[in-house]
Each structure stands twice: as C-alpha cells, then as structure tokens.
C-alpha cells in the first residue's frame, strides 16, 4: 500500500497563532485588573451603647476628654485636652497625653486609660484620625509605643 503525502524528514511546525492569541488575552486581563495594593490597617474602637457603659466607667479613673473645634469649612481650629488649650499641635497633644497617663508602658487588658473624643460636627474626619494617631501611640524607630488604646466618641453635636 502506498501512503501518499509522506515525505521523509519533514519538520512538523506547531501553529503558534492560537496560543499567542490566548496568551495576549490573559496578559491584557491581568494588566487591566492590576492595582497597586495600598496597605490598610484599623484603629479599633469598642463602644457599647451608653446604657451598659456606667459599669465600665467605675473601673477607670477620670476619662480623658479631647475637644476638637472646627471652622465652617471643616478645618481644625483648636484642640483642647481636659480643658487645656493646645492650639492645633498634635505633637503637643501627644506630649500632654504622655504626661497625663504618667507612663509610656502600655497597660495590659481593659484597665488602660480611656479617651473621649468630642468633636464638632463638620470637622474633617482626617483630623480625627490624626488626633487618634497622636493619642494612641507613637513610633520609636520601628517599634510602635502604645499610649491609649481605649477610644470612644462623645455624642455627635448637631
């Protein structure tokens, strides 16, 4: 029997076209969905409803009160910690917090000092976060030193 079209030594060539099509499709998909990841973290705030709060209040001494005032545009105008005016200086706020709690070693468990943030309604949230950053700790090299871990908000002002 004679087999037609058989030539000795013919090189078989893979057809690459379809593979390249798929590869480029995949490539375009991954390029489009690519997004640089921004690392995010949380400040945790434990705030049960005020009713059961009175029991917890007894265990801590005086809560530290931070008052934040804003102008009409939502910019910070002044900070005051326990009625001591601090201007707009977050570093000074941190210094005062350190001297208030007397120690820079963190207190274990739920017995740490507590801060209540009382802010004007239209103050920008960014400033609140900056204040929380200032009172909750500071960076010492790569180590984070914690100051106040219990944060709560006062009633919203209208």
């Amino acid at each position, binding site marked *: 029997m004679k087999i037609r079209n058989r030539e000795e030594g013919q090189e078989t060539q893979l057809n690459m076209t379809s593979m390249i099509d798929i590869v480029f499709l995949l490539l375009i998909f991954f390029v489009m969905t690519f997004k640089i990841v921004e690392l995010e*973290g*949380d400040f945790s705030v434990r705030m049960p409803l005020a009713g059961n709060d009175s029991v917890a209040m007894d265990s801590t001494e005086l809560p530290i009160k931070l008052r934040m005032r804003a102008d009409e545009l939502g910019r910070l105008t002044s900070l005051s910690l326990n009625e001591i005016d601090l201007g707009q200086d977050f570093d000074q706020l941190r210094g005062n917090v350190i001297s208030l709690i007397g120690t820079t070693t963190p207190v274990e468990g739920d017995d740490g000092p507590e801060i209540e943030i009382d802010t004007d309604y239209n103050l920008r949230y960014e400033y*609140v*976060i900056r204040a929380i950053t200032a009172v909750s700790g500071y960076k010492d090299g790569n180590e984070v030193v914690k100051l106040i871990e219990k944060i709560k908000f006062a009633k919203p002002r209208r």
Partner: protein
Amino acid sequence: MAEGDLTPMIDMAFQLIAFFMVLINFAQTESNDRVKLPSSQLVKPPEAPLEFPIILHVAKDGEIFLGGDSFTAETLRVGLNNEIAVIKAEGKSVKDANVVIRAHKDTAAGDVQEVIRVAQEVNLENFALRVKEDRS
C-alpha cells in the same frame, strides 16, 4: 514561507503574565472608588482577618455604602439589620460582629459619629476605623 522566531516573544509574554498573576489581589474588592482613606503611621495591616466584618463606606457627602447599596444615616438601620440577620443565622451573636468604617478623609466627623450611633442602636459594639498605612 519565512517565519520569524517567536520563542523570545512568548517567553516575555509568559513572564509578564506570571508577574501580574502573582501581584493580583482579588481581596481588594472591598474598596470603593468614592472613598479616599486618611492615612496614619501607626496602623499595621491586621495579621488575622476580622470576624464577621460589616464594611461601611462613608463618602465625602455622608452617603453610606453597604454591600453595593446606598444608605443615609437614617436608613442605614435597615441595611444593618439585614447583616445582623445573616450573622444570627450563623449562630453568632451581634457582639461578635466588627463594623469596619471606611470613611473618606474629608467627610464630616459628625457623619462618622452618626454611623457609629446607628450601629450602636442595633447593639453592634466593635468598630474599626480603617485607615491607610503611611510609611513615610
């Protein structure tokens, strides 16, 4: 027919695919375009994911997004009740849930407080204020 050598091109294409595949992060789907988080130097990405997160996006004008639906501070309670129903159906209590608040940095602080107040009224008590890590 003269064919060019495709091997280097395919090598490069596969390299690129591998690169983007490794870096892709589907977990980022919880972000919202209208929210630009404030940043802080103190936060670290959490080691373990939060239990039962309820993610609330608060846009600059105080509009709240929960799972694709838009709410205001007054109507948010309905959305939260739905979330709580899901948590209860899994046999856990409301106290186990974590409310993750992703608020835009220029939102009025009072709007965020309103969100917290509404959540407190449905007995949620663990809140996390999500911020961007600032490594400068």
